[in-house]
């Protein structure tokens, strides 16, 4: 047992801290997290039975027939269910349910329809991006808009607009973007920025009220001139282009956003190089840190989508096998089918564990850190909303609040902490989404002719699942990000995203 006292041994890869996120987290977690999560899963399952499963095929079919159709009816149902403000902290007008429970919600919804799950989950990608700036004043204003949208029955969603026609993978990695051809120009003008450019593949674009837009004040050096802004639907100079015609996840629009001399006032600028100039790290590292904060949360969410679609495919295959005779014997009683079902069950379970571990990492070192600190958790859980609004919310309007939060999150976060959250998020993203696609393929294969039919659902799961390996960084990018954060750091001479021309 003496070896345990030797820190050097625990610094060896895999490092102790990186492989024990759950172990370190559980004792620190407020017990109420368990009850909240139970409630969320129960709510999600009821919603699945009532809304998702009965409508999933119809929405998919309708979008194929009417590509410009927008699923407002579903969004309104989700809004009434409280999904769009359920995980927003009470401080900002939301219900304040613990953020990791969002992943369970997304898994449940995705098991019925990952497009519908996306209609909820992508909103939180927008929220996470807004929160990644730790601009408390703007966070308070926009998230209270969301809460107000729930109260009035007029959904207020937030999207993230980052992908450009010529830059998809590049925009998620500072080492790549420095060599990329980005075109969304945010020109500094008196009182704000003037934005020109186009964003594509923006999930929920047409459905969202607010859009967290990433532009660049110098297109030649985007890595040190990144501007994160909030643009509202209806703003002058901002319009929607076409909706993409996707193979799957048809129910969730992927939109083109067009900016033509769109003026963004200073109060809607979440963060730019001017605001970040006094941070401890150089601006390029700060921009990467911000992206890592956001993606470490959102990629765990995509892991939950992958887990959900893996489960949906498994459940369809299980149901089919339980009801179908092949060669005179129920499929469920044929050993090969039992083994395939077990393999699928395993894929679901491991995918789930990956996003859970990723969320634990976020609780220890990432965006959830403060919210899961017991005093803060219980304060916001049990303090009446009116009291929060009266006593705490005004604090958000003070400049010092943003300064303190940024000090805590940007300057006090250690490099190995962001490596842990970013590495685990990438691992979960590609492991769970690969599992999702794999299970869908297995379900289609096991169901044969029925697996190919739209009315039997497995083929829809397969089409839906494939997108998960692409967005939030392709699974190839995420593998390299895992290498960068959890492998390459300990290998002398190892560099990610800097491959020499000669190697290919």
């Amino acid at each position: 047992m003496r070896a345990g006292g030797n820190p050097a041994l625990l610094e060896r890869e895999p490092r102790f801290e990186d492989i024990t996120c759950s172990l370190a987290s559980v004792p620190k977690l407020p017990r109420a997290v368990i009850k909240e999560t139970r409630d969320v899963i129960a709510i999600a399952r009821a919603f699945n039975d009532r809304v998702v499963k009965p409508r999933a095929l119809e929405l998919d079919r309708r979008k194929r027939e009417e590509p410009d159709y927008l699923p407002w009816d579903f969004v309104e149902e989700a809004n009434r269910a409280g999904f769009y403000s359920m995980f927003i902290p009470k401080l900002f007008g939301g219900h304040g349910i613990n953020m990791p429970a969002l992943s369970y919600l997304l898994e449940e919804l995705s098991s019925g329809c990952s497009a519908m799950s996306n209609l909820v989950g992508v909103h939180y990608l927008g929220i996470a991006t807004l929160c990644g700036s730790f601009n408390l004043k703007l966070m308070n204003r926009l998230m209270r808009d969301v809460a107000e949208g729930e109260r009035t029955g007029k959904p207020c969603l937030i999207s993230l607009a980052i992908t450009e026609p010529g830059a998809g993978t590049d925009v998620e990695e500072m080492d790549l973007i420095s060599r990329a051809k980005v075109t969304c120009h945010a020109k500094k003008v008196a009182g704000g920025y003037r934005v020109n450019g186009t964003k594509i593949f923006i999930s929920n674009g047409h459905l969202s009220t607010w859009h967290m837009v990433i532009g660049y004040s110098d297109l030649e050096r985007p890595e040190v001139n990144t501007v994160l802004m909030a643009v509202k639907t209806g703003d002058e100079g901002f319009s929607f282009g076409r909706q993409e015609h996707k193979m799957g996840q048809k129910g969730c629009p992927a939109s083109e956003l067009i900016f033509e001399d769109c003026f963004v006032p200073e109060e809607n600028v979440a963060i730019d190089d001017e605001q970040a100039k006094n941070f401890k790290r150089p601006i390029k590292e700060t921009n990467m840190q911000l992206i890592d904060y956001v993606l470490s949360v959102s990629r765990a969410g995509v892991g939950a989508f992958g887990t959900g679609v893996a489960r949906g495919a498994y459940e369809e295959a299980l149901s089919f096998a339980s009801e179908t005779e092949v060669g005179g014997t129920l499929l469920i009683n044929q050993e090969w089918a039992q083994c395939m079902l077990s393999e699928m069950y395993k894929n679901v379970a491991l995918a789930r564990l990956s996003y859970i571990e990723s969320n634990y990492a976020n609780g220890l070192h990432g965006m959830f850190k403060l919210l899961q600190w017991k005093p803060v958790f219980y304060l916001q859980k049990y303090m009446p909303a009116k009291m929060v609004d009266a006593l705490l919310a005004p604090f958000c309007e003070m400049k010092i609040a943003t300064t303190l939060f940024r000090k805590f999150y940007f300057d006090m976060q250690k490099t190995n902490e962001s490596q842990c959250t970013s590495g685990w998020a990438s691992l979960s993203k590609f492991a769970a989404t690969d599992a999702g696609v794999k299970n869908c393929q297995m379900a289609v294969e096991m169901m044969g002719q029925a697996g190919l039919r739209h009315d039997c659902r497995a083929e829809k799961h397969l089409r839906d699942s494939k997108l998960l390996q692409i967005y939030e960084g392709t699974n190839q990018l995420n593998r390299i990000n895992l290498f960068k954060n959890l492998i390459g750091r300990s290998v002398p001479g190892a560099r990610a995203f800097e491959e020499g021309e000669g190697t290919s």
Partner: protein
Amino acid sequence: MSAKADPELSMLCEMAHQFANGELTDTCQDNDRFPIAPLFGGVLEKAREVGFFDLTVPEELEGGGMDMVALCLALQTLCRYDASIGGVVFTDALAKEVLVASADPAALTGVLSREGDALESLIAFPSYRDPSEGTSLTAIAVDGGSHRLSGDIESVVLAGVASTAVLPAVIEGRDGYSFFTVSLNGGGVTTGSPVQGLGLRACPAADLSLNGAQAAIVGKAGEGARYFDAAAARMGAAAAAMALGIMKGSFEEALEYARQRRQGGREIINWSEVRRILADMAIKTRVAEMLVFEAGYSVEEKEEGWEQSSRAASLAVGQMACELTDDGIQVLGGNGYMEDYGQEKRFRDARQVQSLLGLVPRRKLEYVRRVVEGESEY
């Protein structure tokens, strides 16, 4: 022997390329919108004029009189552009192979009528199912040697467009199943709406509900499984050829895109991970090509174990096509997922083609059963 070395096959290949270039390249995305968009009947009519249907039907029956290698070549070329037309050719050919296997000349000549347009002259068949998995149609013998069929059957390919179907049914009181030819325009047949499927969307399928529909038995009663096995053994190579065509199309589009698309300041083809994926795709395509034509020649020459060669080729190449088209999307990233490009369609089509001839795991079990029971070498 290489297909390229045979002048007749070279000519067929060239003809298929020209046909596909002229008729499919610009329209395959629109055609894929069936049933929202109309069926590409005009293209099928031209395909019949060119001779892609009845390619392997004997010349004395007014067919093309060509061999399985020719069918494989035609299918892989067409599927490189649009696998749906391959599905139509395949299904029609599979139905006719069942009739040929029955050695029932009346059955074959009866359906090879040259009357009507291309669509009507096609034969519908449940191509995605081995009837041994189970069939819910029942047949009752009536006076005059004909039968009446009743029951429901799902996903009959080309039902709704063809005028005749070859369907499996169990004759009451007999073991095994039999095949029957059924007029789909006759009484007692209700054809459902086109089935919305994963892939091969312009190769339509529909559910049929039969209520005492008049039918003529194919060959001998209770011998359906033997006919299907014989037909499926030959057509395995053809299914593999379809998968190969899809693979070629996917690889070519991925390669072209990788040369154009830039990431991190250079074309993505110059990143080694993209090259590794492309290498996997290229190797699979080359291996699949060897398998398909080896199987095709094996079928045609009736080499020892040709049935297993054909079956193995369809299973192996079908799987390779699914893997390769998955990578084909991935190389294109978000664009690969969009209908504006061809990769997502190939991803769907590959999975659909893999399911031709029945449930894949069961086909594998049947493959090894033949080995275990000494019917064939592995």
